[in-house]
């Protein structure tokens, strides 16, 4: 390693030699960097899971465009939309189909008295509102009153229950004073606001929520005719539908709006964003402490080298070399432990937490910058002082 670094740097790898000279300190420093990496990875993982969990229900929809109330920020909020907007939308050339979507939240009491909160969608069983295979396959069953399809990804529900449903053994439970019969399953997965999803017919939805009316869905899903000019249809819809109560978005726009709102306006998104900042700060403090201690410990040696003509950039090079070694060697256990924790979190919570290929590169790049910045700060005293003041 020393010979390789010497060839790479064109000089003695003093930084590397200093680090390995004190194995206990090196191990502590690497543990610190790995810890900071894990912290950042976990916060990024949670933030990524939040973003992904927001996207999942949208991607399950069988729609090109979404008409929502103008005050809509997420799938779950916003005022109900006048159903007449659906009819108006259907009159726009290029719109092939429209179907209303009702949204609500339902508590599902478990045998152990715990509650699973479900995001509930009420759909017209005659229209293919979702493209998810389980929903599409079970859509006909929704014609029957109080029949529901449940998300197999619902958190903390025994898999045996879903398997039994799929074998044709419906599961019944009480909710909002009615007995629902769960006759089929599909898969979306739980998010941060609910443990999973439940799909019922619009009529069942209205029986569960008597305060809601058929004429006021939360969203209208639009499908365009094949070959229709999407931009032109959107423009026509926006000029047709009154902007004071409705807004037209592509699914991607709706997802982006929802994700932006939840990650910047909602506490959960802010907490994860803040967690990333804390992780970076912890990393900077740990690396700065390691490097500044190392510089302080070698100040007399550095001063001697400065006295014989070494420039400040040489010392910066040593500290950057140390920073790079710490960043790279600390990153490896950091990313491996983070991967194990991702798997554990996904298994326990059902959250869509995963490691995209870009994330390790981002964190590694950030760690190198973090370590280099800490190193630059750690050498300030050396840069300012006359050599004689350092002995």
């Amino acid at each position, binding site marked *: 390693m020393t010979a390789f670094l010497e060839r790479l740097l064109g000089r003695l790898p003093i930084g590397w030699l200093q680090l390995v000279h004190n194995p206990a300190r090196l191990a502590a420093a690497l543990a610190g960097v790995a810890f900071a990496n894990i912290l950042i990875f976990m916060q990024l993982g949670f933030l990524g899971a939040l973003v992904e969990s927001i996207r999942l229900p949208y991607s399950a929809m069988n729609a090109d465009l979404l008409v929502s109330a103008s005050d809509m920020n997420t799938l779950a909020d916003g005022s109900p939309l006048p159903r007449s907007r659906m009819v108006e939308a259907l009159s726009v050339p290029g719109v092939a189909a429209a179907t209303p979507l009702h949204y609500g939240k339902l508590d599902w009491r478990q045998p152990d008295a715990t509650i699973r909160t479900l995001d509930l969608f009420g759909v017209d069983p005659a229209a293919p509102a979702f493209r998810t295979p389980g929903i599409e396959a079970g859509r006909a069953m929704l014609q029957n009153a109080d029949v529901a399809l449940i998300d197999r990804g619902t958190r903390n529900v025994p898999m045996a229950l879903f398997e039994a449903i799929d074998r044709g053994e419906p599961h019944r439970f009480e909710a909002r004073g009615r007995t629902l019969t769960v006759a089929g399953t599909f898969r979306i997965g739980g998010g941060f606001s609910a443990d999973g999803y439940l799909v019922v017919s619009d009529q069942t939805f209205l029986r569960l929520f008597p305060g809601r009316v058929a004429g006021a869905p939360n969203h209208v899903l639009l499908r365009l005719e094949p070959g229709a000019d999407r931009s032109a249809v959107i423009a026509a819809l926006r000029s047709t539908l009154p902007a004071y109560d409705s807004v037209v978005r592509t699914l991607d726009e709706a997802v982006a709006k929802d994700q932006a709102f939840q990650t910047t306006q909602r506490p959960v998104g802010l907490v994860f964003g803040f967690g990333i900042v804390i992780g970076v700060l912890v990393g900077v403090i740990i690396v700065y402490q390691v490097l500044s201690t190392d510089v302080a410990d070698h100040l*007399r040696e550095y001063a001697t080298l400065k006295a014989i003509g070494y420039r400040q950039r040489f010392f910066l090079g040593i500290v950057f070399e140390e920073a790079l070694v710490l960043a790279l060697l600390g990153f490896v256990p950091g990313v491996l432990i983070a991967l194990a924790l991702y798997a554990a979190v996904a298994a326990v919570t059902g959250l869509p937490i995963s490691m995209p290929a870009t994330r390790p590169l981002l964190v590694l790049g950030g760690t190198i910058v973090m370590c280099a910045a800490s190193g630059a700060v750690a050498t300030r005293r050396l840069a300012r002082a006359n050599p004689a003041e350092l002995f």
Partner: protein
Amino acid sequence: MDTPSDAAIVVSGLSHWFGTGEARKQALFDIDLAIERGRLTVLLGASGSGKTTLLTLMGCLREVQAGSVRLLGQELAGADEDVLVICRRRLGFIFQAHNLHDSLTAMQNVRMGLDVHGPAAPADWRSPCRHLLELVGLGERLDYPPGNLSGGQKQRVAVARALVGNPEIVFADEPTAALDRESGFQVVCMLKALGETRGTTTLMVTHDPRILDLADRIVTLEDGRLVPETR
């Protein structure tokens, strides 16, 4: 002051202070001094007399506050960092403490005295480093880290590091303090021989009376002022 034409260092009207405000204390008072090339000059004086301050000012290790220091023809007063770096590369330093890198071997520590010259350093660094270490009696301990060397051996590595780059001037602050009688004497003899063979100038702060006999010149400081010379 008569300034010899072959002076390696010419100091004139040099004063220096430490501290600020009411705590400001003058360490050197209007020093005029010329150090001839190729000679072994010893700076003598009681503790606190200003020897090390004068040595570090002449060796580009401190900023000149008042007066002039011309080192190898270069004025140091007001010189920028680039000029100081170039000057420092023409010098060798031996300090009372060896200041070796614990993580480097004796050879690698000595190599640091060569690598500072960058592309101008010899490609084969091993030969001169080995030669110098053999000269100071450490030919059998080339790959020893400082932790496995005695105090005197470490100091001899520091001497080798100071000399490996063929400096024009060697500044030595109590270089024999950590050496036994024989080793200290050998090191100073080597420095004196360098002056005779290569024209290397040596300026040394010491309290060691044995070395005084080897000195070509003795400059004495007393409370920051030069004492008229007797030799």
